[in-house]
């Protein structure tokens, strides 16, 4: 009996060892999806459009009524420094559309990834491409009233944040709205402002893609940093931003407003 139980333990142990080995064994032919979740927050508060009220570092109150941004040129880097790119995939994150907050990357090779990078905006190559290349979220006809394209200065609005603030000096229309529209890809026929920002985020716990594991990378975007990520923005002074040059400080700020909070590696 004693011998038998030893045998059992040994058997169990070997099963554990075998299964562990199997898990660590990365088969490069295995592929799975990776989900990038964009969790837009205001500081330590949940962002509810039009409702959540917060203050920036200048003690100016604000709400957010609209928040949209393009995510493109996503890349994942694994432990060996190899980079997997996802070219020609463009996503429009809209806070008002919960589905758009989850970006799905298909056919990611198995591996342990410890860095993710992406661009906020639409790269210059796509920004000058033929209209036949502008489909899906890049279709200028797809935005309705919530436009993400400048027709007078051909180019996409990369990042758009609108809301209210009592800091805005009262005007004739009694409006208290701020609007930050940031775009500018660098120009086609002449050099213009370039507000394309690539964001590179390390992942403390790796995203472990396996045949049966499709990780979810939880990205937190703190919109309060749009006001002070690098440059201090006073809403009282800056509340209408509708051109590439006016958008530079805001672009520099939101480039510093994202972090990877954690990664889920649950089995499918």
């Amino acid at each position, binding site marked *: 009996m004693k011998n038998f139980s030893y045998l059992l333990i040994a058997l169990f142990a070997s099963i554990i060892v075998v299964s562990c080995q199997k898990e660590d064994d990365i088969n490069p032919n295995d592929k799975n999806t990776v989900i990038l979740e964009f969790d837009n927050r205001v500081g330590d508060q949940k962002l509810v459009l039009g409702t959540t009220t917060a203050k920036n570092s200048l003690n100016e109150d604000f709400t957010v009524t609209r928040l949209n941004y393009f995510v493109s040129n996503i890349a994942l880097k694994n432990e060996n420094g190899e980079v997997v790119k996802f070219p020609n995939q463009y996503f429009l994150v809209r806070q008002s559309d919960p589905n758009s907050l989850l970006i799905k990357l298909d056919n990611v090779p198995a591996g342990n990834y410890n860095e993710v990078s992406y661009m906020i905006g639409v790269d210059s190559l796509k920004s000058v491409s033929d209209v036949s290349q*502008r489909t899906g979220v890049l279709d200028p*006809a797809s935005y*309705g009233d919530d436009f993400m394209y400048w*027709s007078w200065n*051909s180019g996409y609005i990369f990042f758009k944040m609108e809301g209210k603030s009592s800091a805005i000096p009262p005007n004739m229309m009694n409006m208290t709205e701020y609007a930050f529209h940031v775009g500018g890809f660098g120009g086609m*026929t002449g050099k213009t402002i370039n507000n394309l920002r690539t964001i590179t985020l390390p992942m403390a716990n790796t995203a472990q893609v396996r045949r049966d594991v499709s990780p979810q990378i939880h990205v937190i975007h703190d919109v309060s940093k749009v006001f002070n990520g690098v440059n201090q923005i006073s809403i009282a002074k800056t509340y209408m931003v509708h051109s590439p*040059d006016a958008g530079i400080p805001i672009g520099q700020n939101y480039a510093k407003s994202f972090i990877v909070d954690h990664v889920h590696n649950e089995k499918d």
Partner: protein
Amino acid sequence: MVSGLIYLGVACSKDDSPEIEPEVLFRVPPNFPKPVYDFSKNPLTKEGVELGKILFFDGNLSRDGTISCAECHSQPSAFTHHGHDLSHGIDNKIGIRNSMPIQNMAFQKEFFWDGGVFDLDLFSIAPIENPVEMDEKLGNVLEKLRKQEKYTTLFQKAYGSKEITTERFLKALSQFMLTLVSANSLYDKYVRKEAGGILSSEELEGLAIFKQKCASCHSGELFTDLSYRNNGLPVYNKEDTGRQRITAIQTDSYKFKVPSLRNVAMTAPYMHDGRFYSLDAVLNHYTDGVIESKTLDGLLMNNETPGIALTKDEKAKLIAFLKTLTDEEFLKNKKFGI
């Protein structure tokens, strides 16, 4: 059914007959430079051009159905807005710029007075979505068209299926605009040594003055070097800094595109804000009205005083020459109207 087939048979044999030449939709005039537009991305077809023309004249492209492209771009004025210094759009709202002629579009590398649009296929979105022009959303326009059988049929004819997409819509408008080539003025016949191409002595003297004093900016057969320059206009609207709005470069402040002078006698008023109602007023500006500023074009600073020296007699000759750039065939071609 049988008669239908016979009819088709007849039509086919007719089409195959070698005597009928296919209609040329676009041709580079012999005295013109190479086109900038990439036709390989949007080959012109008779049906595509026809669709574009119908769209061009359709008020459905505007929010309330009242303003078509042709409203501010009318053929007898070389497809500009005659009699309005600033373009009048929807609800009688007034824009900040004078509408530009639509002609020889295949040869432009940028569009609008500030060159903010670099592709003809993206050009049409701007007036459609401008709140003081047509004030509509591109998506709504496509929805309106999709509901009309007239359009699904026209798109089917032009593209082989009824689908109405952004690309098809914009490229059809481009196709029509690309056919608007003006290159048969008296001047053209003169330079191409064609029948009837005889300029009077006054016109010839005007041409000589033009070459000497105007052609460094209004250069070549397009009569523009396609650059942006500050021609010394007193600033009426500080906000409209022209090319600077696009490039954000201070040295581009108050620079506007050098316009083509083709059909210039028909495209009054003049300048980006339509401040001059006659060619006399324009020439008077160049002789007496040029204002010095940081970004004033160097070519207007050749003399002690800024501007261009011209006598009254020279001005009259210049205007006589400029009138030879009027292309009656273009202005009256029934093909361009509905």
